[in-house]
């Protein structure tokens, strides 16, 4: 075993893990305010990436990304307002099927708009062949962008939830919806906000990762499965645990190349998902009591 190669894999694992974490956090934000899993979360990532690629032919990269994030946030808000807001006390199952429907709808719309072509943004700095050497490990600058932006998203979300009124209101809604309404918090606005936030961070993740992984109309599905696995692995609703779980899954996947052909990489995440659901549905970091209170 070559130690440098080992670190090379670790870095690759962290990169993918960071993206999985962001997708999982998107799941968690919506789960916390609504109690449902939004299966269209992966599509937010795809739409963010695709829109940015299209906009990049008209605008410089930073503006294209910014606009793509804003457009996806608006799309997130519209989806909530059109499909979810008017439902009166919907059952969890009904909400989940609605989000699956939305995900199919978005995928087909993307196919119609952008076709089957695989696209990608250019590298933010340097090109696909440039690399930095950190302690003998060769790292693409885009990898640093992915890890850096993921870290910024996590820190910014934490600050948002801890120190701003809307952030606290969203947590209050997650903690006790009726009590939040009795404090004058509009629960339905908080749900819209949670879709906007999830769409925004999903889109940003889609933009930074697209130079490495590329993006296509159906690339959201795979990411959604990984993100969902990570959310379950960390414990649904727990965003900090999702970061740890995302890194674990990313590194496991990356190291699996040693023992299995690359084609079987996805088996790792599916097996972990099934194993967790069978053995410890509350997740690695979730408590039993918290899990027993969950509707889903």
């Amino acid at each position, binding site marked *: 075993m070559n130690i440098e190669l080992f670190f090379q894999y670790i870095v690759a694992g962290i990169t993918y893990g960071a993206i999985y974490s962001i997708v999982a956090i998107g799941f968690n934000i919506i789960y916390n305010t609504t109690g449902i899993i939004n299966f269209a979360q992966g599509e937010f990532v795809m739409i963010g990436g695709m829109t940015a690629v299209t906009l990049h032919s008209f605008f410089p990269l930073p503006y294209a990304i910014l606009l793509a994030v804003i457009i996806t946030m608006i799309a997130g808000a519209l989806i909530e307002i059109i499909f979810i807001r008017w439902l009166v006390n919907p059952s969890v199952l009904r909400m989940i099927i609605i989000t699956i429907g939305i995900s199919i709808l978005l995928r087909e719309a993307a196919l119609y708009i952008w076709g089957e072509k695989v696209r990608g943004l250019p590298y933010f700095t340097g090109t696909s062949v440039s690399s930095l050497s950190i302690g003998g490990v060769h790292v693409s600058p885009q990898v640093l962008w992915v890890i850096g932006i993921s870290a910024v998203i996590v820190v910014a979300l934490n600050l948002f939830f801890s120190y701003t*009124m809307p952030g*606290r*209101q969203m*947590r*209050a809604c*997650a*903690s*006790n919806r*009726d*009590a*939040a*309404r*009795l*404090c*004058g*918090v*509009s*629960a339905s606005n908080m749900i819209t906000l949670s879709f906007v936030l999830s769409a925004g961070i999903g889109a940003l993740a889609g933009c930074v990762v697209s130079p490495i992984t590329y993006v296509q109309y159906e690339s959201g599905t795979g990411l959604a499965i990984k993100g969902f696995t990570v959310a379950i692995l960390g414990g649904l609703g727990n965003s900090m645990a999702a970061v740890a779980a995302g890194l674990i899954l990313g590194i496991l996947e990356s190291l699996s190349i040693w023992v299995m052909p690359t084609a079987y990489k996805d088996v790792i995440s599916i097996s972990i998902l099934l194993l967790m659901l069978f053995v410890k549905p509350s997740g690695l970091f979730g408590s039993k009591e918290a899990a027993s209170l969950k509707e889903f």
Partner: protein
Amino acid sequence: MLKIKNLESGYGKLKVLRKISIHVNPGEIVTIIGANGAGKTTLLNSIAGLVRLKSGEILFDKQDVLKFPPEKIVFMGCSLVPEGRQVFSTMTVKENLILGAYVQQRRKQRVIDLESIYSIFPVLKEREKQLAGTLSGGEQQMLAIGRALMAKPKLIMMDEPSMGLAPLIVKEIFNIVKRLRDEGNTVLLVEQNAKAALGIANRGYVLETGRIVLEGSSEDLLSNRDVQRAYLGRDLDSEMKI
């Protein structure tokens, strides 16, 4: 301040409240006493907007609150301290209070006045940074009342503040409710603990299986035979025989 006429309310096909008419004047404590399942909580939840009415009208400050969702009713100045406290257990004491002040913030009151709450409940200041879920029952009740007070309501409704608390703590909570009235607040207090509630209230209503069966000043109700037998645990007839 609050005037309710012929209110009928319930869940689905189940009618819990029938033809309820009550009123609350500014500056008084009005209590609604009754046994488990009489509909006390449904009544408060109907006023707060959490339960939809079947018919009747609720006038708060001469405004009809029927059409409004709970979050709007709070803005009108009618706060509910819900049954079972319902604090945000995963958030700190201070954050709970800040959320209570959201209504005030929207009314363009930039300063969050935590100190006035801390002066009523000094223990909350000590626990400021603790998660609300780790507080004792009595402390959580104080936090729930404090959170409602942060909105500077014209009317504060309390649903069973004595529930599950030790007698000494109940006494403390009721002293605070009395103090709130003496400072000019209006309180609508729903209680199973009839003796304690009538002890501080100006007036009271007795609710039985969804109907108001008795109303009057606290003194009248306290000396009423039926009230004594049913809610105060005294049976005058048998006492007289001895």
